[in-house]
């Protein structure tokens, strides 16, 4: 605790800090948070500032500094993907059900299984959710404070990384969908769900829905 005395060991110059951030981000395939950077860098370093400099330095380069959730990493520029196709490890093809379920979770998170079923009009097979969990794109969120306390699903940082999103707020068309009321959790009139749709009880339907996750 007392081994690093700030009066004895001043933080390295910012240019040096930038080199450090560069080295750390280059070395890791997983995005690194500012807190992690700070923990690795000498005492008194300002990784945020160094990151901003680094990001600027790599603008327009063959690799870029990208933000993924609250973490950062180097990624190749998308326009150069064609050069690198050889590296692709064929990811298992996702079923249509899985893709739709993923989108519903992303846009409605935290989403319960009942909500997903209500939107798709069919029951969600276990395999679909398992596949998304296994892929690391979704995880369990907090249980909903509704009767039965159902589990919820939310998307992960890995999801953001996969689709090049800085945050779930940057999902394509999110604003428009919300403005159109299509992300509202509208209960069926009279509490009577459509047949085939998930049995969404009324209590469940007044969930906070997508807005919840955007609270910082």
């Amino acid at each position, binding site marked *: 605790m007392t081994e690093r005395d700030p009066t004895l060991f001043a933080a390295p110059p910012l240019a040096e800090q930038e080199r450090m951030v560069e080295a750390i981000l*280059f*070395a*890791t*395939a*997983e995005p690194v948070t500012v807190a992690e950077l700070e923990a690795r860098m000498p005492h008194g370093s300002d990784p945020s500032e160094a990151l901003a400099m680094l990001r600027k330095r790599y603008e327009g380069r063959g690799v870029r500094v990208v933000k993924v959730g609250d973490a950062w*990493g*180097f*990624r*190749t*520029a*998308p326009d150069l*993907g064609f050069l*690198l*196709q050889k*590296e*692709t*490890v064929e*990811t298992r093809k996702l079923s*249509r*059900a899985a*893709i*739709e379920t*993923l*989108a*519903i979770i*992303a*846009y409605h998170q935290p989403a319960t299984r009942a909500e997903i079923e*209500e*939107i*798709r*009009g*069919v029951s969600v097979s276990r395999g679909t959710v398992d596949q998304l969990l296994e892929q690391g794109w979704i995880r369990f969120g907090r249980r909903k404070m509704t009767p039965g306390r159902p589990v919820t699903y939310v998307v992960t940082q890995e999801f953001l*990384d*996969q*689709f*090049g*999103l800085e945050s779930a707020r940057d*999902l*394509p*068309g999110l604003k428009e*969908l919300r403005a*159109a009321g*299509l992300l509202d959790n*509208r209960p*069926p*009139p*009279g509490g*009577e769900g*459509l*047949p*085939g*749709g998930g049995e969404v009880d009324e209590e469940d339907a007044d969930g906070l829905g997508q807005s919840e996750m955007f609270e910082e």
Partner: protein
Amino acid sequence: MAEETWESDAPDVSARIAAEALIVDVEGYEGPLDLLLTLARTQKVDLRRISVLGLAEQYLAFVETARVLRMELAADYLVMAAWLAFLKSRLLLPPDLSEDGPSGDELAAHLAFQLERLEAMREAAARLMARDQKGRDVFVRGVPEDVTRIRRVRYTATLLDLMQAYARVRTRDDFRPYAFDRSDVFTMEEALERMRGLIGFAGEWAALETFLPDGWHADPRRRRSATASTFAAVLELAKEGRVELRQADTFAPIQLRRKEP
């Protein structure tokens, strides 16, 4: 009745052909809502302006065609058909105010909302998948360097913890904790002290049991403990020459009385 529906409500031949084309692909649907959405698209209008009544009829026609073609439909498709038939009747009949529940229009509006929402999610999913994806368009470092993780555990303890620990260790011998519940134990010291007080009154021979303290007679464990400790205390007092003991026979009651100096 379904047959009539088909005859009278089929919008036109092309729709009929389209419905038959849909049928062939029944396996390809992701449930009745998906089928409804596909049917809705054939109306070629914005989903917001869709005719739910027309859609219900299209769906019922689809189900009927499937029946005629002897194709098996999953149960949820038939449940949907029944529900749409109910919706259709609600939409066609004048509202019955005495009846509970949502009106046909409300139900229709909700169905339209669901279709619109499903379509929106489909589009969102497509846009999502079209993004530059990691491992397809965008790549991570090919050789992540070995980031060694040194896991260090830092233990915390304060000086107070340390001193209390020492105090605890050093004083442990003074009062070694008993391994059993002391509330049911009458110690020899307690018995001795009690008997010292009582012995002066024991001028006549009296059974040992009569000297047990109140509340130590009933419960067998307490009785055993009190008897043992009282007996030990009495032996101690006999050694001191303050009581006399006698026992008529083996296992006979032990009697005691004050020993006159």
